[in-house]
Structures are given as C-alpha cells and as structure tokens.
C-alpha cells in the first residue's frame, strides 16, 4: 500500500505569511489551500510540494478572525482564498485579485458555514413558475414519494 508521508505544522495568524514566505524561499510550490469547519473551528490547510515531498501548514481560527492573504507571496492563492471566502465566510484581507464574494455565487450564502444544508426536495422554489407552461413535468413529479401530491397531479392530467 502506497502511503505518502504528510507532515502538518500548525501556524498562527501572526506568523502565517512569514512561514509561507519561508516555504517560497525554499522553492516549494503552492499546491492548494483548503478549508474545513469542524464544530466552531475553521481549519485552513496550506499544502506545499517540492519534488513530490508534501508539506502542510495548518491554521486554526475561530469565527470572525481575519486571515492575512498570502497572494503577496504566491499570487495563485487568490483563487483558493476567494473560494474559501465565498464558501465558508472566512474574511481574508488584501487578496491581490479580490472578487469580493463573487467568484462562486451560490444560492445559499456561505454554504459550508451553515449546519447541514437541507434542500427540501418537496418545495423547490422555482417549481410553480412555469408549471403551467410545461404541463406535467416529470422532474417535479413527486411520485417517488407517494405521500406528497401525486393524486393532485394525476387529477390535473386527467382533466
């Protein structure tokens, strides 16, 4: 079984940029920045790679903490940082190319920051918009859930 060795070093908000600059000076390549929210703690992983050696810096923050951007060191971080901002609502300051929350426009704001997003299947918002135009639309039919409203629809079809 192939299992890579993966080191994870914790950093703080204060020394994040300096640690990242150190990685840059050593010739590492920024692989990705990924965020996760576990209970109330945001865990941001900065992954670096050099000749297939994989190293991580980990930043743990709580809600409301402003994270400094590392786009000054690695410009390509802008895409990940904007994504984290859009999906998690973590505020990151001084991003070189800041989309201001418009990189990924989602129907739910900061979807990963909310507890389990439950999209209620029975009540799709746009359903009624053109239900009349499309007649019986198969994708809206909730026959798979016999208890909702197939009867009403069937009646409509008959009429």
């Amino acid at each position, binding site marked *: 079984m192939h299992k890579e060795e993966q080191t994870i070093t914790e950093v703080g908000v204060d020394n994040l940029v300096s640690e990242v600059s150190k990685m840059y000076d050593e010739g590492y390549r920024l692989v990705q920045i990924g965020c996760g929210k576990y209970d109330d703690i945001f865990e941001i992983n900065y992954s670096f790679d050099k000749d297939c050696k994989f190293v991580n810096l980990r930043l743990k923050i709580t809600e409301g903490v402003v994270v400094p951007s590392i786009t000054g060191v690695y410009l390509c971080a802008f895409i990940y940082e904007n994504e984290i901002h859009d999906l998690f609502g973590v505020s990151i300051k001084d991003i070189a190319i800041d989309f201001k929350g418009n990189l990924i*426009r*989602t*129907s*739910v704001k900061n*979807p990963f920051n909310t507890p389990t*997003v439950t*999209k209620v*299947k029975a009540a*799709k*918002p*746009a*359903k009624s*918009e*053109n239900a009349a*135009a*499309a*007649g019986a*639309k*198969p*994708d*809206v039919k909730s026959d798979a859930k016999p208890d909702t409203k197939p009867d009403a629809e069937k009646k409509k079809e008959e009429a």
Partner: protein
Amino acid sequence: MSGLTKSPWIIHYDASSCNGCDIEVLACLTPLYDVERFGILNTGNPKHADIFVVTGSVNEQNRQVIKNIYDQMPKPNVVIGVGICACSGGVFKECYNVAGGVGQVIPVDVYVPGCSVRPEQIIDGVVKALGILEEKRAAFAAESKKGTDTGANADAKKDGGN
C-alpha cells in the same frame, strides 16, 4: 428519419453538467455517430437553432443564461434535456447550489435519461424531438395563417428584437 424535410440545427449549452453528457453530445457529431447525416448541425448561435440541447442541472448563476438562450431562439423550437442532471438534478439534486432539472426554467419537451447518456440515446431523443418540432411547426403555421393580430406574430417580432 425518412419523413424529415428540414435540417434542424441544434444549440448545446452545458448548464452544470459534469462534462460526461457534453462530450457525448459532441461525440454524436464525430465520425462514429455523425448526426450530420441527418443535416443536424451544432451551431453556436441561438438565433439559428431549432433544437436546444441542455446538459446538466440548473443553478443560480446559469438560470438566466439558459433563459436568455431560450428567448433568443426562433419560436417553434424544442428543448431536449440530456442526461439525468438535466432531467431532475441527478445525484446532485440535494446539493445546495442545484435547483433541479432544466424544466425549472424553460419548458422541456424531451428528456433523455442516462448517466452519462450514450450517443445513441441522444440520437433517439433528437428523433423524438423532431416529431414534436414538426407538430409545433404545423400548429404555428396554422395559427399564423388564421390570425391577423395573433400572439404568434407578436412573438416573432419579439424574437427578432432580441
């Protein structure tokens, strides 16, 4: 296919599909399946198209795009939802950013199920859609013949204006 008199042109839009169905739509155009035998062309311009092929599900950002393309198409047209995502949202229908099938935004005439669909299925779907298109055309022609100030004319004007 024998009763086919006109060459329908299709326009393809990838709503938020995984590419699986997209490349199968493209594969229809390439040598093995070659829908150009039927005179079907893939055009990039909605104003030239008769058939609107949508792959993938609808989300917040592309809702308007789909509507725009549909509104720009000349009116007796058909919409084909290709793939499970376009039909109902597929495996992603519970995702926060997926509103569901294409039927949420525009009326769909033919659904082609499959994940991912096979080119043969797409051809079958197009054949079915052609039948519907012919019907719609006949109805449209009848309507514009009898009506002097009917909605059909107004519709046609609106399309031109777009």
